[in-house]
């Protein structure tokens, strides 16, 4: 079984995690073309992606940078790094 080395909860089976895709920021004030691009288009080529992972047993969200060619996690990201303010 594949293990995921998490800095907070240690080594856990990868099957305990849900993959929730790339961390992306919505274009809060944009036209329809920009919105369609945000909703559908993805960075599909192999690269280092910043992704959401959800650990089901503990109910915690993690953000990690992973090389999608080698399947190697390179860095854990503090959610503060990717936060943005939603305009009131």
């Amino acid at each position, binding site marked *: 079984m594949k293990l995921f080395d998490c800095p907070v909860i240690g080594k856990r089976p990868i099957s305990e995690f849900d993959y929730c895709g790339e961390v992306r920021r919505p274009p809060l004030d944009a036209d329809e073309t920009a919105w*369609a691009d945000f909703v*559908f*288009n993805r960075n*599909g080529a*192999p690269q280092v992606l910043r992704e959401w992972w959800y650990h089901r047993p503990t109910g915690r969200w993690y953000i990690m940078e992973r090389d999608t060619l080698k*399947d190697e996690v390179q860095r854990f990201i503090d959610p503060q790094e990717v936060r943005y303010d939603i305009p009131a």
Partner: protein
Amino acid sequence: MPWRLLKYGLKKTHDEPRFFPAAKPLKSGYDVVIIGGGGHGMACAYYLAKEHGITNVAVLEQGYIGGGNTGRNTTIVRSNYLTPEGVRFYDTSLKLFEDLSDDFDLNIFYSTRGHFTLAHTDSALRTMRWRAEVNKRHGIDSEVVDREFIAREVPYMDLDCAGHSAVQGALYHAPGAVARHDAVAWGYARGAYNRGVEIHQKTRVTEIRTQGDQVVGVQTDRGFISCNRVISMVAGSTPRITEMVGLRTPIEIFPLQACVSEPVKPFMDTIVVSGSLHVYVSQSSRGEMVMGASVDPSVLHSTRSSFDFVEGLTDKMLDLFPFMSRMKVMRQWAGMSDITPDFAPIMGKTPIKGFYLDGGWGTWGFKATPVSGKTMAWTIAHDKTHELIEPFRLSRFADFDLVGEKGAASVGH
């Protein structure tokens, strides 16, 4: 056969005719360059030469013919899709498949089996009824059948599914079939070669050159080729190619794994799919049980296999076929699926003049091999998107006009 085998076994040379000779040096230019020498690429080259008289064509393949997803799928051909667009498209493909052996003068082992999609819940059965009605409307042999019918046709299956998710009924598609995938790729390749197409294996495209918004050539690891029409038919490598021309698409790559058991005597003449359990199985002409499940959970550009896959698959498979507990898994592998959000392909012209796209084939590409080759060849010859593939145009993601084929993907995703 044994005598022939012995004769060749004892001979120092092997004089079986080759399908096509090793490639010559690349020319400095072609009318059309096809990137990807899988089933789709070969079919496109074949129909370009056969139906449109365009023979100054090069097929560039970074590995070898049919060594990508064409050789990694589980060879099922069917047309019982959910949307009218999908049904029309895949049924044209199925009909082309039925005549391919004659067309190639090569046995592709096309074998009509009958295809069951099991429903374990009321809601699944409801989707089956919906699909059956759409199918019948388009003249496809497709119907919802009850447990008695399934028990008669697939007597070795445990319909109670070990007692925890009993089969309620199924969508039955009599024309569902399997075919020899390598023969399909090689048959198209030979037909294309005999009509003048050049096939270059071990030739990787590294750059697509454009001038303004017009394609002018491709750079390969064997030199530059000038051409005004380039088509990408590379399935799991599609994002790498579209990135070269700066085209954004919704395609994401997820590995799809499959495995075969050791060969056993023929007993299973149907194809069984369970969308709820996420597994499917058929028996190959060699006697192996060909088994697959849904795609891996996270994006990955790799064809590695995992133990988690076999563990999850066999757990579900034994619920349906308990007697398989004593069979051994002989081989497992993976392919890279280029998944789209609406589970339909992306085909046709693109905003870049002379760059055509045939991608987003996810887990449904093999069955579309003939029709995609044929419609893309038409599209290139006329520089106009063929009407059958109009619904699959890339711009549907800008117009919010998606196809919505999710309900008909062979296993749940």
